[in-house]
């Protein structure tokens, strides 16, 4: 086994962080290590947090770290923030809410820029989760960028998805729309001391009562809980609600194990990882080459002049590369 793989499995933060960055930056040579880490047996509960910007995902994550550390669990945190579509730069600010854990050696936090990815995560997120799993973390908390309605990539990488909502974001039709409202294993109504929290609770309850998963046999059914979290200014009360959330998370993980659903989730994760690997091996090199050859620029130029259309060009390139 490679020295780097060994160091990561032993839990060395610097090596792990180096590797995550090399993957983000698509540096050559990461595959060999990932291959070795892939085969490490893992026993980690991966938890995803998603919700709109400012819903309180980072603060909840911080509270959960505290709750898990009381139980002496080791923690990995991946926090994704958006990247600029113009400069490619980013301001990653999720750690501001988690500073109290900065010197706890059993907590490894890493911020990721979305790097233009549209699903609420970054392309490197799946591999970063794998790296933290290989480090032997008991829990990995993945926080997506602030999302809207459709960014559901987190379901590919987490065993349990927590959707964080705040009161006052729209009428009940929002709760029956497709997308993010369907992916929750647990709902959190955050800032529940605000007006409209009870109304939101009723609306989500109604939505859940009519959801198709209710057709499953009662003993196999996961009843999606709604956890109210209020009053951030009263720290004890806040931490109490987080404790409730922690219990629900553990229950969900036990439920997955008891009903042999972890394998399902794992399959889902692996499918997503394979698709990403295919993407980086097939699509990305073609696009890179088009840019490097200046062909991309020529094509754009022709399109601007309306000499041809994107479909014809894409067909031509697909033929060139796929018919080999």
């Amino acid at each position: 086994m490679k020295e780097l793989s060994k160091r990561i499995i032993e839990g060395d933060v610097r090596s792990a962080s180096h590797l995550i960055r090399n993957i983000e930056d698509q540096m050559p040579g990461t595959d060999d290590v990932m291959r070795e880490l892939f085969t490490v047996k893992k026993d980690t509960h991966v938890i995803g947090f998603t919700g709109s910007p400012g819903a309180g995902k980072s603060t909840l994550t911080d509270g959960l770290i505290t709750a898990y550390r009381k139980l002496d669990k080791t923690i990995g945190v991946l926090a994704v923030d958006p990247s600029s579509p113009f400069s490619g730069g980013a301001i990653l600010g999720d750690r501001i809410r988690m500073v109290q854990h900065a010197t706890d050696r059993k907590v490894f936090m890493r911020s990721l820029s979305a790097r233009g990815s549209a699903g609420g995560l970054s392309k490197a997120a799946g591999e970063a989760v794998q790296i933290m799993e290989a480090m032997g973390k008991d829990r990995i908390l993945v926080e997506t960028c602030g999302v809207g309605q459709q960014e559901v990539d987190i379901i590919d990488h987490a065993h349990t998805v927590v959707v964080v909502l705040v009161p006052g974001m729209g009428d009940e039709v929002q709760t029956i729309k497709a997308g993010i409202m369907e992916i929750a294993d647990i709902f959190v109504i955050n800032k529940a001391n605000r007006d409209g929290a009870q109304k939101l609770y009723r609306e989500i309850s109604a939505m859940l009562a009519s959801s198709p998963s209710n057709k499953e046999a009662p003993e196999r059914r996961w009843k999606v809980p709604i956890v109210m979290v209020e009053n951030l200014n009263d720290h004890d009360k806040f931490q109490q609600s987080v404790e409730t959330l922690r219990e629900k998370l553990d229950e969900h993980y036990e439920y997955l194990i008891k009903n042999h659903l972890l394998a399902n989730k794992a399959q889902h994760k692996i499918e997503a990882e394979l698709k990403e690997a295919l993407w980086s091996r097939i699509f990305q090199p073609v696009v890179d080459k088009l840019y490097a050859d200046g062909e991309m620029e020529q094509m754009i130029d022709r399109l601007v002049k309306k000499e041809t259309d994107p479909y014809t060009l894409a067909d031509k390139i697909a033929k060139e590369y796929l018919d080999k």
Partner: protein
Amino acid sequence: MNRKIRILLAKPGLDGHDRGVKVLARCFRDAGFEVIYTGCHQTPEEIALTAIQEDVDVVGLSCLSGAHNALFPAVVKDLKQNGAEDIVVFGGGIIPEKDMPSLHKAGIQAIFTPGTPMQATVDWLNEHITPRD
């Protein structure tokens, strides 16, 4: 390959004046850097360990409280203690001319004081920071 400069901006010590550092964070974002910002009231140890977890190339410290002589070198020391002396440290804030030589000697590689055009800081970073291999 798509290496970007990764930078940690932090405010050590008892100093809540963060407007300047936020403006800089924004400016670095627009320069295409990935900026990790961790807010005010950080200890040198917190800053050093964060820099390692985030695998940054460079740490920028902002201090307007007058405690830079104690805090800036402490960050360099904590990085070294944790095997990360390769991470570059620079600083800015209300820093008297007479303090600069000792700060430079302590490993603070550049110091920017009020009135520095933002672009000058970006230029310095682009010139002196090579993202690691």
